[in-house]
């Protein structure tokens, strides 16, 4: 078969930029990857202006977004966040990924007035949020719940991101029911990853992870009211394979997705690498927007050594992995934090979140066969 197309090198234009308004987070979740989350280092308006100089131009030609993230953006306060948002034109979509604990009526008014799209981080019903605590070790869930209640009171649509520490059958249907009740319109499921300062083991029993995804597929199918990211992508890939269009599915080039840190330093591809240093790779940054424009930094992405190595890793995936057309070659941070380098292929993360996902969805499909015949390879 011809090798799958797409994901060849990095695009010069990102579809979104992750911006870190502050390094601070008011929580201290056990699985968090952010190294500076207890310090309040704030982005200057000059950094936001420098990003907006390119971002406003990109938005004139296509869809372009800013995601306020990487630290708890609401911890920066409304006044400061407003000042950072101001340089961006109305054509730039603005998003916030938040733990929701600080959201109150005033924040909801702020979101509505600025058309800021909200995505909350919540891991399911209260007992699934045991890893989410503040620095005093107090459970964050009651505050998360209050924040989400405020969003609902104000009629603000929101998405949710859920970290699953231990994917297993029995949990998926419960999670899906929870998020249906919660009232989000979009849901993303992230199996916990070993990255950043989170060194927890992310190896799981393959059959359990597969069964988790199969159960989630069945739960979604019974009531497909949510846009469930993992299912949507799986089904679109499966659809494309059946209709012979799978080769058009992956982006032609990798999205560089710059993360702009509080100080203006730019890290490509993986926000999880921002703020980190390695003896061999340095600080992973490709430069600083206060010295050179973002579009200039994106013109020579593989000039940053690890980025070139990552592109080689994607090519190694293309040449060796039958899931490449679905996956697109995995994430830089997972490679680094699992392998210590960027040019490898399979990771625990890609097994949990790509391979077992697709296999789990196929298991669900097979279970609907008359007699529910199982996967022949497992027989």
């Amino acid at each position, binding site marked *: *078969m011809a*090798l799958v197309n797409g994901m060849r090198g990095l695009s010069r234009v990102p*579809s979104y930029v*992750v911006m870190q308004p502050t390094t601070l987070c008011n929580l201290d979740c056990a699985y968090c990857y952010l190294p500076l989350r207890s310090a309040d280092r704030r982005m200057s308006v000059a950094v936001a202006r420098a990003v907006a100089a390119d971002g406003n131009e990109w938005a004139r030609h296509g*869809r372009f*977004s800013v*995601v306020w*993230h*990487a630290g708890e953006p609401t911890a920066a306060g409304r006044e400061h966040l407003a000042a950072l948002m101001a340089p961006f034109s109305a054509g730039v*979509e603005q*998003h916030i*990924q938040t733990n929701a604990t600080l959201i109150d009526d005033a924040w909801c008014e702020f979101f509505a007035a600025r058309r800021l*799209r909200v*995505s909350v981080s919540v891991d399911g019903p209260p007992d699934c949020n045991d890893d989410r605590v503040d620095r005093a070790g107090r459970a964050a869930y009651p505050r998360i719940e209050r924040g989400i209640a405020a969003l609902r009171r104000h009629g*603000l*649509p*929101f*998405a949710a991101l859920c970290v699953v520490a231990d994917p297993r059958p029995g949990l998926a249907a419960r999670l899906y029911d929870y998020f249906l009740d919660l009232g989000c*319109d*979009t849901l*993303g499921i*992230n199996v916990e990853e070993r990255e950043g300062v989170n060194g927890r083991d992310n190896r799981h029993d393959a059959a359990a992870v597969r069964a988790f995804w199969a159960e989630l597929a069945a739960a979604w199918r019974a009531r*497909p*009211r949510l*846009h469930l*990211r993992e*299912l*949507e*992508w799986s*089904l*679109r890939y*499966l*659809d494309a*394979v*059946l209709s012979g269009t799978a080769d*058009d*599915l*992956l*982006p032609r080039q*990798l*999205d560089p*997705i710059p*993360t702009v840190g509080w100080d203006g330093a730019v890290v490509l591809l*993986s*926000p*999880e690498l921002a703020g980190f240093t390695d003896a061999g790779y340095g600080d992973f940054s490709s430069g600083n927007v206060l010295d050179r424009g973002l579009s200039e930094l994106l013109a020579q992405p593989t000039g940053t050594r690890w980025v070139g190595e990552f592109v080689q890793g994607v090519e190694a995936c293309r040449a*060796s*992995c*039958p899931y490449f*057309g*679905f996956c*697109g070659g995995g*994430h*830089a941070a997972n490679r680094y934090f699992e392998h210590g380098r960027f040019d490898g292929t399979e990771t625990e993360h890609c097994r949990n979140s790509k391979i077992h996902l*697709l296999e789990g969805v*196929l298991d669900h*499909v*097979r279970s*609907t*066969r008359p007699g529910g015949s199982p996967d022949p390879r497992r027989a």
Partner: protein
Amino acid sequence: MSDPLDLVVAQIRDVRDELVPLLEEARAARLARSEEPGADSGAVCAWNHFENIPTFFNWNNRPR
């Protein structure tokens, strides 16, 4: 089909009959969701652009 790179595609084709109804349900569900009032202002976030772009950029390298 003996190329190991084709194994996944082969097993997908193998379940075509069961897959087609699921894909139709998914299409109908997408339509139902976009018909909901206020769907234009939905929270589909930057890491999930793909209702609006054909390239699925945000599946890969999304922030978490």
